[in-house]
């Protein structure tokens, strides 16, 4: 049993198989890139992994425990956090408030202790505020700490999405296109941070279209096409395989 293992996952929407029979092994500490043309099932894969969808067939195991069939909050509690393809934020909250609310899983005190503000809760709260501020510093959001999250520019909102996911203190971080809509400089800043996160021992699964980002980061790449896994291996090798190029550019028919 591997670290994070997907066994023959099928996710069907009506008669369409968004994922068909996908098996995947994610090793601890690696940065796994998932690529594929639009509609190939990349986001569905993350949605199935985090419990947003239930797989139609197959099972997912994380550190020997079954993940598939559980609720999103249970899966998050097991240590799997995600970001979203679009900028998903808490409406009306500031950057600090968003990340504090998102730090829910770091609190070990129960609701009664939180309500009565016991010593243990206060100490814990202080530590977590410190951690959140460190996180904001790392992701260059520190100057935006008290600004409303919805008013941030797109790039900052992407970073906030990563900060929110990291606030859950995950063992596996699933990033759904973290660099969409960013210029090269911003994308490279994200790359630097994903490297830092990876160095801290977090396993990263990364959906990405930007080849520069992928080649920079990924230790392994999986290619999906129409819900099928068509290739797997080192990024440089996979990108030169014929069926991968065909999937992206179409086949020659003369």
């Amino acid at each position, binding site marked *: 049993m591997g670290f994070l293992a997907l066994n023959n996952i099928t996710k069907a929407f009506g008669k369409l198989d968004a994922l068909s029979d996908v098996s995947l092994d994610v090793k601890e500490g690696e940065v796994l890139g998932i690529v594929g043309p639009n509609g190939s099932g990349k986001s569905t894969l993350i949605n199935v992994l985090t419990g*947003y969808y239930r797989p139609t067939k197959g099972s997912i195991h994380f550190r020997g425990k079954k993940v598939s069939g559980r609720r999103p909050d249970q899966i998050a509690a097991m240590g799997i956090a995600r970001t979203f393809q679009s900028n998903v934020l808490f*409406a009306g909250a500031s950057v600090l408030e968003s990340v504090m609310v998102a730090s829910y899983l770091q609190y070990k005190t129960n609701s009664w202790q939180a309500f009565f503000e016991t010593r243990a809760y206060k100490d814990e709260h202080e530590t977590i505020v410190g951690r959140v501020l460190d996180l904001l510093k790392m992701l260059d959001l520190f100057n935006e700490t008290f600004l409303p999250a919805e008013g941030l520019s797109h790039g900052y909102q992407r970073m906030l999405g990563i900060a929110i996911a990291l606030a859950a203190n995950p063992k596996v971080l699933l990033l759904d296109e973290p660099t969409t809509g960013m210029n090269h400089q911003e994308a490279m800043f994200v790359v630097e941070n994903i490297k830092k996160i990876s160095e801290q021992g977090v396993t990263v699964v990364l959906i990405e279209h930007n080849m520069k980002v992928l080649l920079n980061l990924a230790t392994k790449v999986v290619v999906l096409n129409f819900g099928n896994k068509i290739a797997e291996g080192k990024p440089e090798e996979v990108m030169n395989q014929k069926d991968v190029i065909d999937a992206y550019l179409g086949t020659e028919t003369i």
Partner: protein
Amino acid sequence: MMLLYIDWKKTVPRIVAAVPIILVALVPFYTTNMVTLSMFILSGIWAIAAMGFALILRTGQFSMGQAGFMAIGGYTSAILTVKLGWSFWIGFLAAGIVSGIVAFAVGAVVLRVGGAYFSIITLSLGEIVRIVAQQMEGLTNGARGLLPQAPNPIDLGFVEINFDASAVPYFYLMMLLVAVTAVVFGQIGRSRLGGTFYSLAANQILAEHQGIYLMKYRVMAFTVAGVFTGFAGAFYAHFMSVITPYMLGLAQSIQIMIMSIVGGVSSLVAGPIIGAVLLYDLGEYLSKLQVPGLQALVVGGAVVLVLVLLPKGTGLVDLWEKFWRKVYHEDEYYYDD
């Protein structure tokens, strides 16, 4: 050398909140007129119900049957005191507990759906309570209702607290109940729980993916609101010394909603209290003028005005916030529109 430093930014809002509370607390020293005091007492009862509604709304759910929980509380206490002859205090406690249990049981099933479905099911819950109260004649006397008595006089030695003689004991009991509710709800709002409740309304999917179990916190808010609304209902029944199926129906549920929203649900305590006091007293004043339809017209107009002029879930309480920020020259660094 000691410098006397007063943080006006914090002190002034505290004074603004404390002055009306102290003034209201002193009302029985000016007048013990039953009509005046009962205005305050009834606004307090509605204020508690409105706070309960605001707490549920904090989790993003719109309960349309809060008067049903008042009825459950009222009937529980009335049945225990009238039919079984138990003391008011036990009936009062039981009212909160029974109402809380019903809220928990209903919430655990109904809150799975949430949204509009939840609103409709709570609306029917309120109606079910009314119909059950009407039909179970053996227990509730049907449409004639029950006549719960005032609490027995308490002899403290130097002074006797007699609930039958004047409304003053009720008045202070009501203030105590509102204060306890306000402290509990305020603490919920301030603490981590408030943030968690809010996150469910702000973005349910994101909250779930951060490890927050939706049902746990939805049911928690619904149950806490149910307990305190039940207390308010028991108080209402004993103060009015009657409870019938028609006293607490859909109209009252809507009244609770409107009070809460007009006052402003951005605050769990101040907004609903302001809304309840203003709208209840406005309604009472207008009904005294004896012009048919005037009350509904003016209250409806006031609601529309608030909704148009103060959109985005803000109410009267946010006006103060805005004003105070302007006075204090705190930069508004961000405008949404």
